[in-house]
């Protein structure tokens, strides 16, 4: 799975949890601009962990400011 595919998973899961359209977000998008609160983001990450069958430690997202930071953290925990 590459960065673009992970980004698509992130977009799709955000849309599922928040019931809004996130198709326009890119890696450069600011997380603050998404207007997704931290609890909803935890729900999103949990869903991604389940769907990709991975476990991501809580501190993997420390300091994340852009969507690309989240995508990188997910990529780093994918097998292989």
């Amino acid at each position, binding site marked *: 799975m590459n960065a673009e595919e992970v980004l698509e998973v992130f977009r799709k899961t955000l849309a*599922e*949890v928040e019931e809004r359209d996130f198709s326009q977000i890119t890696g450069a998008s600011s997380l603050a601009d998404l207007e997704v*609160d931290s*609890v*909803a983001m*935890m*729900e999103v990450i*949990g*869903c991604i962990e*389940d*769907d990709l069958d991975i476990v991501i430690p809580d501190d993997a997202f420390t300091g994340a400011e852009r969507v690309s930071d989240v995508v990188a953290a997910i990529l780093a925990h994918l097998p292989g």
Partner: protein
Amino acid sequence: MSDFELPTNRAELFSLGLKLLDKDYFIGQFCPENGVDPTDLFAKAEVFGGLMSELRASGRFLFGMPVVSKPGPKVLIEEPDGNQREMIMFASNDYLGLSAHPEVHAAIREVVENYGVGAGSSRVNVGYSGIHRSLEAKLAKHWGQEAGLLYPTGYDAISSTIAALCGPNDRVIIDASSHSCIIDGARRSGATVRMFRHNDAKRLEAQLKRASDKGEGAILVVVEGAYSMDGDIAPLDTFVPLVKKYGARLMVDEAHAIGVLGARGHGAVEHFGLEDEVDLIGGTFSKSLGATGGFVVGDAAVLSYLNYLSTRIVFSAAFPPILAHGVSKAIDLMEADGGLRERLWENIRYFSDGFRKLGLELPEVEVGAVPVRIHKDGVMVDFAADLYEAGIYAIPIVYPSVPHGRSMFRLAMQSGHTTEQLDYALSVFERLLKKYEIL
């Protein structure tokens, strides 16, 4: 102390005070940034203590002020300079005023001579008394369950039950507005923890489906009967069929619902008539029942398991038998005197209608506290200080307890509040809501 200088802006000062209560922030960010010696274990505590003293001396940090009078709708607060101030209390969860009820006090006096003050040891050692046994039997019978089990506190009852029941192969699904005891227990269990949007059945089902699709271990859903910060109750009638559909178990923490909801004050499960459908019911005696201690009721075999595998039971002294006797009397009063609950709800309706008449938008209040949303984070510290000066004790709820822009006062009601007290509080709020341009 480090060389850190406290902000002079009062809102920033208050915000800092709240941030310092987050241990991860204080140790992980504040201390390194301010040169606190990381090799001295106590250095951070000295810095913290100094900062807290200065914050309290500023008169803008109202948390933990000592009450020096009997609990109730009107109390005496002791200020840092020793001055005592009479306040109308809107921050206590003693919704029915049972902590100060003379019959509860008489019940405690009745047994203190024979049972002493403390339990003496853990309940699995010799800390279990006939009084504890009677209270467990009463809880089981009155809550319509097979058995009851007491814990030292309500926090222990919920957190330790989850931690003892669930393991690494299991999954705990919790509401996004869950109390710390639920989150703590779920994390300690080692199970996979998933949150769903507050009270959202669709998101609960999405989490249940993902858990079911994984097919690993068991699933426990934990919700609260009433959410005091959100001012709403869990839609248990919607949740129960979903939980059953996916073969999960449901535990309900009735902390803020006991004494407030249900025909006999048993909580949200009784309110919805789901006593036979919920797997475990837990709660605390520290709110409507006016004491301390916690409990879980449910299947006898499960509670026997919990009795020996809950760390908070095995490694903690049982809660005092005299309090168990007081709680037993408080349950009798709560069930028998429906007037207590009626007066509480009259006060909730009167107060929330009063705010609506002032022009404030208020949701339907389903719990024992009226949520007055201010939305302007920047005025909260001065607003709270003005309330304090006017003799109204109300704790401001600000970020990080709620998201930015959703600042509020959670005004906890009591059956003992008088109409005069509520009218006075409304008049003060009217003045301040205008002063801070909320109205």
